[in-house]
């Protein structure tokens, strides 16, 4: 590049032998003559110092070995967009003369390439280009005004990752000329905070996908980029990017949960990818427990893999999202425990009612049914302690319980309140399975009332056998029935010999009536 160093060179992104850096200083560094550029490398270990030389501080670096002085000649300031496109896609003149197919050799083996020249011809028709990949092509500016719009206006999808774009304004200049732009990838470009100029009307009007991975941009800056200052527009600040459906903010550690509200009202946002941003909680303050929030109205798919989620309250909050259908939350502290992945999955399914896909596995209706029933039973005791009642009108649940299990009420309505019988969890010892029964003889007034402990699985036949030995009455003469103290006057006949006491729902404390 030229030797002239103007001040506007500071802040520009450059490339030296494959390493990217930002220019921080331009000028003379005594005692060595000639112009020098002071650069801060992206790779903090690449440099020799931190911007100071022999005591004088010329520029500041974040890292003690992050900076270097380089001659301007050795530095690549990048090329403009159109040149980059031409470099990649247009056939060079020399090759056109060579009509034969190229052969490459690998060791002793020639490699046959077929049809490469026809492909080259097709790709060289720039105006037909719709998908363009300019990754690592040293693009630093938009080039002459209107050049891009004239040569390749139909570009819908451009990958500008790992280039030398230094400011959002430059991006806007490029985007402004690509009216059909749908997908824009700006990852790995260190963009500067926008100066405040609003995007022109029509820029980004067709944008569907915007990728800003590893750009070092802060959340506040994103909002300013995407939304012009409110005082300049009469409508909602998010008017410019109404069409955004997918937002991937992964691996940007500077985003915290409070700032998510700034994108909460994008009306068409359907997919939000927040992997690896260090998020651990989320809160929708406008919705109470059990209500739906007005934020993220169209959000259908949320990805929060590789984060710091360790509280179940996170999932409780997710239930408030009105359109959420799919969730991916792998590799979080809460879900990491290998032994319990099945339980974790069930709990998440139960906590978020409208979820149809979890971790890319469809939730079948049977799975949901099972998960919700299990959830209802698992927390049944807590519910009772917190004031739950069979008769739902008499429910008075504590705030704590409601906060921890906001869907519980709904589950009770759906499946019925959990009954005591379900909730009791006694150890499986035989003595706990025995039913203590009273045995009465309605026709024999002089016989005592006996009390016996019988297992519930005992068949009526065996009960009759036992009684016949006791009473010295033949089995065939015995007629059994039982009544329950809870429902006095109602007698249930035990007529099928082959069925068990359990079958007839004989409970502890019931009374067997024997007649012959």
């Amino acid at each position, binding site marked *: 590049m030229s030797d002239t160093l103007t001040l506007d060179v500071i802040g520009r992104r450059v490339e030296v032998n494959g390493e990217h850096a930002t220019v921080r200083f331009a000028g003379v560094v005594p005692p060595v003559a000639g112009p020098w550029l002071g650069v801060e490398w992206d790779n903090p270990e690449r440099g020799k110092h931190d911007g100071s030389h022999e005591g004088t501080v010329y520029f500041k670096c974040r890292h003690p070995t992050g900076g270097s002085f380089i001659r301007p000649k050795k530095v690549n300031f990048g090329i403009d967009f159109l040149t980059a496109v031409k470099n990649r896609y247009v056939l060079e003149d020399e090759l056109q003369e060579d009509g034969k197919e190229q052969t*490459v050799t690998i060791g002793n*083996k020639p*490699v046959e390439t*077929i049809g490469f020249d026809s492909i*080259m011809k097709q790709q060289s028709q720039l105006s037909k280009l719709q998908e*363009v990949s300019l990754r690592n092509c040293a693009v630093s500016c938009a080039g002459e005004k209107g050049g891009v719009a004239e040569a390749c206006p139909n570009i819908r999808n451009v990958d500008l990752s790992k280039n030398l774009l230094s400011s959002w304004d430059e991006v806007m200049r490029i985007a402004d000329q690509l009216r059909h732009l749908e997908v824009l990838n700006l990852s790995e470009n260190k963009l500067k905070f926008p100066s405040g100029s609003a995007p022109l009307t029509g820029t980004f009007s067709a944008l569907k996908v915007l990728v800003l991975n590893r750009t070092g941009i802060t959340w506040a800056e994103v909002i300013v980029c995407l939304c012009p200052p409110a005082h300049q527009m009469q409508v909602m600040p998010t008017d410019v990017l109404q069409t955004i459906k997918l937002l991937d903010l992964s691996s940007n550690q500077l985003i915290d949960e409070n700032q998510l509200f700034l994108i909460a009202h994008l009306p068409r946002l359907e997919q939000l990818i927040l992997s690896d941003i260090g998020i651990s909680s989320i809160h929708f303050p406008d919705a109470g427990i059990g209500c739906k929030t007005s934020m993220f109205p169209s959000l259908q798919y949320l990805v929060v893999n590789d984060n710091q989620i360790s509280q179940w309250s996170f999932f409780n909050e997710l239930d408030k999202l009105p359109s959420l259908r799919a969730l991916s939350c*792998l590799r979080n502290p809460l879900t990491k425990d290998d032994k319990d992945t099945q339980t974790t999955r069930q709990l998440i399914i139960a906590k978020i009612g409208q979820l149809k896909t979890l*971790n*890319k596995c469809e939730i079948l209706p049977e799975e949901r049914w099972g998960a919700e029933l299990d959830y209802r039973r698992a927390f049944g005791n807590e519910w009772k302690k917190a004031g739950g009642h069979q008769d739902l009108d008499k429910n008075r649940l504590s705030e704590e319980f409601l906060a921890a299990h906001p869907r519980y009420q709904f589950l009770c309505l759906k499946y019925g309140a959990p009954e005591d019988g379900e909730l009791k969890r006694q150890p499986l010892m035989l003595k706990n399975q025995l039913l203590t029964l009273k045995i009465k003889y309605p026709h024999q007034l002089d016989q005592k009332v006996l009390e016996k402990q019988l297992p519930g699985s005992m068949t009526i036949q065996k009960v009759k056998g036992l009684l016949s030995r006791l009473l010295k009455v033949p089995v065939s003469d015995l007629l059994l029935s039982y009544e329950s103290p809870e429902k006095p006057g109602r007698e249930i006949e035990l007529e099928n010999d082959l069925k068990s006491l359990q079958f007839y729902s004989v409970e502890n404390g019931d009374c067997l009536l024997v007649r012959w």
Partner: protein
Amino acid sequence: MRECLSIHVGQAGIQIGDACWELYCLEHGIQPDGVVLDSQHNQLENAKTEHTNASFDTFFRETRAGKYVPRALFMDLEPTVIDGIRTGQRRSLFHPEQLLSGKEDAASNYARGRYSVGSEVIDLVLERTRKLAEQCGELQGFLIFRSFGGGTGSGFTSLLMERLTGEYSKKTKLEFSVYPAPRVSTAVVEPYNSVLTTHSTTEHADCTFMVDNEAVYDICHHKLGVERPSYANINRLMVQAVSSITASLRFEGPLNVDLIEFQTNLVPYPRIHFPITTFAPIVSADKAYHERFSVSDITTACFESSNQLVKCDPRLGKYMACCLLYRGDVVPREANAAIAAMKARHSVQFVDWCPTGFKVGINNRPPTVMPGGDLAKAHQALCMLSNTTAIMQAWARLDHKFDLMYSKRAFLHWYIREGMEEAEFLEAREDLAALETDYEEAGQSF
């Protein structure tokens, strides 16, 4: 001209077929009822390819009503799976005569699939095949989708292949087979079925692309972030590979214009026709823009065993032939550079006697992904078919399992009962042993 007929046999074949035609329809802009939307039709015409309609024609037949009907036949010995297609999303895509089902299934028994139950249905299947073949101007060949381990997939397919060779001797037959996974089994008698079917089919198939469930499970689980991959996830990934292999048949593309070229490029000896399929990049849809793969990255990835669709270690063998099928935004200069980089790798070893090691081609149409699927849309993709002696490990594993069961004559009576003889087992086993030896010899240096 040069049409290809797809035949899907057994549950595996049918389910893969379903995913496959779903993907083809997406790629060609055909709706689930066979109609192409006008605007999309124009898109096809405006596409950079000249003979679009002709290429389209290889897999779909246009009816007078303007519908496009796949040139496919689905058959199974029991109706459940086919009923899924008959009542599924694509029920109006297929003609009812293309979906054949019997009443009694093969019960994971090669003998039933081939001798008892299969023999009753074979004539009907052949008749339908004949009908489909007559609708073709110039039939190139058949693509057969099946599994090795199932009863219909193994037994019926071997019967079908024999009869197809009888009737259409000059037509190519390519197979896409689901090989039994090393550690994940669906049937206990898989080794028997696989060995028996390989023995009978080897002489009739021209090239067999093998895929195994375990490799694809692992890819889905580790790379695509699917917690518990279901067959739907697995099939979608497999059909991406199938689509890449057939891409040059369906879209204008200079490489591998007809099915015979596959054989010529990949098969050095008639029996050594089991290439392994590798696909790159395999990126989860959530990470669509995180990792950008350049052409050299995807080329390197294809030589890694984690991207393979069959579990086998290619470093333990030598490559005999390799086909690299690039799709998408790939500039020839980059493809050349990527291949040149491969020459420096010591792990890619070729046999001494093979003259042209690689064949490379580019197809401009990038791969299409199922909306809402697990795979991210890639700008550039690569499907590599490599014939390597390392596949011998897969056969060795299978043979070992076969030997373990056969030594005790376990489960044998199910086969004997249907009319097979023990001699056939011995014959099949010897044939596979010979196959292993063939591979060993091929890999030896002079």
